[in-house]
């Protein structure tokens, strides 16, 4: 049984309580030799051949625990997925937490367990970490910052500049499940089928690439959802993306939450979904590869890439009724609308 029932300022002070916290909360959960050495830097094995990829992300979420995940799970998945969609095989993660004085120790244990579970699933090791505690009222219970190091294997070339007109856009499953679940929690909506999609995408990406499909670029539609990611891609590639409204998979529960709160699922975050731009004649192969993986069972072709035309929106939605409308960048955050 853990001795840590409440986080105290001293847990971040570097003294005995800090050591106790590391020994009780982090080491057993993340168990690996590089971390266990507790040196100033983790000394790692030599990198496999390829180009190293490095990314970092800060995680805040309210509520800290939600159906399908928690802040810990999210902090690992987010960073693993940023590596994976760049074509890198994720290897090592760092894990820094900023805790608010008074945080429930059991909650911390659960968040750490969530991170450990996600890391194991992704096949990465959490090899370095840090803990700071801020006085009560100076933070919102817990923030986590992770960084991830991975390697892009030789010969793997992915990027928005590789996208060409004629490519098709695939999504690995129903969209917006993470964001819809979070906003549902905040506004007292609940349902058995409503859970965050957060998951590490590394093995799904490997399965897709192993299929031999000519994948040009990948992204994970997190903040701002599919519409925002497509706008970023359209802007970087100089191309136009048309999404087919009727082809976008949205679960009935997510559609329901969005309808009740006046939100558009195309602008809501996923944390375990993949967008892939694939050569048109490889779409079938890519789709089969995604669908053969448990995380890609609901994969679908949702759009196509066109050349940019003057006076036309860079990202458009082809509605069910045979007309197109622009999909702009979201202005500000999505808030429930009533009027």
């Amino acid at each position, binding site marked *: 049984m853990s001795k840590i029932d409440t986080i105290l300022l001293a847990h971040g002070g570097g003294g005995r309580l800090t050591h106790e916290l590391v020994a009780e909360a982090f080491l057993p959960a993340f168990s690996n030799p590089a971390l266990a050495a507790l040196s100033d830097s983790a000394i790692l094995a030599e990198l496999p051949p390829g180009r190293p990829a490095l990314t970092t992300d800060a995680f805040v979420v309210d509520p800290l625990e939600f159906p399908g995940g928690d802040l810990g799970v999210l902090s690992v998945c987010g960073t693993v997925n940023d590596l994976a969609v760049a074509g890198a095989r994720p290897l090592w993660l760092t894990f820094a937490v900023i805790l608010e004085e008074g945080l429930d120790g059991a909650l911390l244990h659960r968040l750490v367990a969530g991170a450990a579970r996600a890391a194991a699933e992704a096949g990465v090791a959490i090899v370095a970490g840090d803990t700071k505690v801020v006085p009560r009222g100076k933070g919102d219970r817990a923030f986590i910052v992770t960084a991830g190091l991975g390697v892009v294997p030789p010969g793997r070339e992915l990027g928005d500049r590789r996208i060409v007109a004629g490519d098709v856009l695939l999504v690995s499953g129903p969209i917006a499940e993470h964001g819809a679940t979070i906003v549902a929690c905040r506004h*007292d*909506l609940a349902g058995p089928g409503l859970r965050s999609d957060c998951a590490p995408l590394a093995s799904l990406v490997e399965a897709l690439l192993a299929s031999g499909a000519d994948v040009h670029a990948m992204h994970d539609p997190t903040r701002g959802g599919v519409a925002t990611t497509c706008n970023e891609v359209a802007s970087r590639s100089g191309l136009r993306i048309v999404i087919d409204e009727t082809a976008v998979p949205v679960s*009935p529960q997510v559609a*329901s939450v969005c309808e*009740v709160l006046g939100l558009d699922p195309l602008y809501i975050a996923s944390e375990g979904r993949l967008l892939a731009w694939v050569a048109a004649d490889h779409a079938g192969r890519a789709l089969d590869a995604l669908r053969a993986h448990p995380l890609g069972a609901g994969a679908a072709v949702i759009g196509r890439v066109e050349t940019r035309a003057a006076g036309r929106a860079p990202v458009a939605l082809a509605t069910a009724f045979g007309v197109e409308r622009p999909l702009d960048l979201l202005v500000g955050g999505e808030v429930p609308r009533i*009027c």
Partner: protein
Amino acid sequence: MCLAIPMQVKKRDEFLGVVELDGVEREVSLMLEPDAQVGDWVLVHAGYAIGVVDEEEAKATVALLREAAMLVGEA
């Protein structure tokens, strides 16, 4: 104005009800629609049931839309 969504009453206890749409539930007040019964579809706006959906009229609407759809099918 005024986003309002039809949801079905699952439970009621005095003026509080639980309504559901496609597996998603929320507590709403039935104070403005005190006659709503379990099983009724109510129109939910800002956490309140403000109206009841008339089943017969809904069926009539469905019939009308099917007719409209047929129009194109035959054209």
